[in-house]
């Protein structure tokens, strides 16, 4: 599903965020991405989504070389990916409902289907009944759930979550991870970045550990 071949990413300014990484994530896998701040977790996720382009090497998603895709083709690849951003990127000028519907608008859903899907996604993440609120009225944890709802509303095959449990207490973080587990159970490929490895241990899944842009044992 996701394949890295000798991928390096050097940002302007000379920082090598990712160095010569090669790995593969199979369809339906749940993989954790661990590492301290600045290890390159966000960069790796952005490379998968084609938000950043590798300086060298190839990133394959669904056998397509994302790093080579044209500006025109890239949006269509992104529609198969659900993204949960480290900085949330919630739009505070509109309701919870309108935040979650954005991917559906982009793909071109309409009518009752939009409402049905948005409410189902909100229900799934535990925000049922809050659709008409402004996101500013949500707690930090609830905002995180809103991001998850927006990422899954169009039922992507791949879900990339960048620190979805940051700033949440342990119990709440476990709730969120349970939620991801339920997506995993219906066959979604998941990559979840987090710096707190103790949370992942309870799930006994594959963990990729990053340090200065390289894998450690």
């Amino acid at each position, binding site marked *: 599903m996701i394949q890295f071949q000798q991928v390096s990413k050097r940002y302007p300014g000379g920082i090598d965020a990712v160095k010569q990484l090669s790995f593969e994530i199979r369809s339906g896998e749940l993989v954790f991405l661990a590492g301290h701040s600045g290890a390159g977790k966000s960069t790796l996720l952005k490379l998968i989504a084609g938000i950043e382009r590798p300086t060298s090497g190839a990133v394959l998603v669904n056998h397509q070389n994302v790093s080579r895709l044209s*500006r*025109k083709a890239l*949006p269509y690849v*992104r529609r198969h990916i659900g*993204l949960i951003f480290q900085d949330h990127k919630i739009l505070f000028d509109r309701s919870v409902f309108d935040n979650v519907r954005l991917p559906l608008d*982009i793909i*071109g859903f*309409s009518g009752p289907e939009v409402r049905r899907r948005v409410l189902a996604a909100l229900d799934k993440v535990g925000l049922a009944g809050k659709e008409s609120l402004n996101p500013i009225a949500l707690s930090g944890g609830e905002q995180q759930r809103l991001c998850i709802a927006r990422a899954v509303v169009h039922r992507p095959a791949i879900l990339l979550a960048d620190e979805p449990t940051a700033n949440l207490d342990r119990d709440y973080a476990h709730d969120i991870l349970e939620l991801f587990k339920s997506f995993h159970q219906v066959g979604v490929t998941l990559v979840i970045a987090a710096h707190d490895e103790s949370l992942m241990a309870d799930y006994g899944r594959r963990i990729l550990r990053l340090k200065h842009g390289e894998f450690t044992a």
Partner: protein
Amino acid sequence: MKHWLRLNRLALVRTLGSMVRTPVNTLLNLLVIAIAASFPFGFYLLLSSVAAVTGKVPVEPQLSIFLRNAATPAEIGKLKEQLATDGRVAQVRFVPRDEALKQLQERVGSADLMAGLTENPLPDAFIVTARLGASSAELEQLRDTLARHAGVEEVQLDSAWAQRLERLIALGEVLLQVVVALLAAALALITGNAIRMQILTRREEIEVAKLIGATDIFIRRPFLYMAALQGLLGGLAACGIVAAALSWLNPAVRDLAATYGETFLLRLPNPAEVAVVCAITVLLSLAGAWVAVWRHLRRHH
């Protein structure tokens, strides 16, 4: 196709929503567009009103050749012959001095015009109609050749004022083109800037939309709708402004024309012209918006 219509309807609803949410901004933008468009359009209507008047004036220019009282029949005969063979001349009519006097008396409506005069003061004359479409340079040349002829006292180019008016209108047309070009550029810049402001207020939305798979077309669409709507409303408002201004001027124009014994009114815009003006403002507005969105997308890729 259905999908496409749906996306467009969605964009249109969004656009109307955002225009209604910022009514002051929307109105100010419309007003600026309307005023910018009303200048060339009003100018054009003025020009076409005046051009219509010159159309009523006979355009074939006339020359009056006044002969010396002492001109000999031989000289007159020679002149006649020359006029008959000159390619620039279409028609010649000889007006003897007695007939000219009779005409004058009829026109003035008074028989005692001659009181105090012992002799008819008017000369014999040729009224020459020049070939249609002769340029004024040609006419002036013709006048000069005829004036040098023996037995000729004076040659008058009668249609000089009509020619002058035509020249003035031609000048006005060039001026109109310049004004149209300048204000068209201004219009595209104004609308482009209005759209740029809209883009700035929605740049987070644009950023998120791009990250989760929106195409450039999807992002551009609502702004193009906004631009088209802005252009259409601005164009209509411009026509309204022009119609109001001309109607306001018209009583004064009518009174002025009446002093010349003419009935003349400035022409108001007709539906076809309104459609053309709106089409132009819409296209310019779209062009401005297109560039604004393109610049934004290029910068934030």
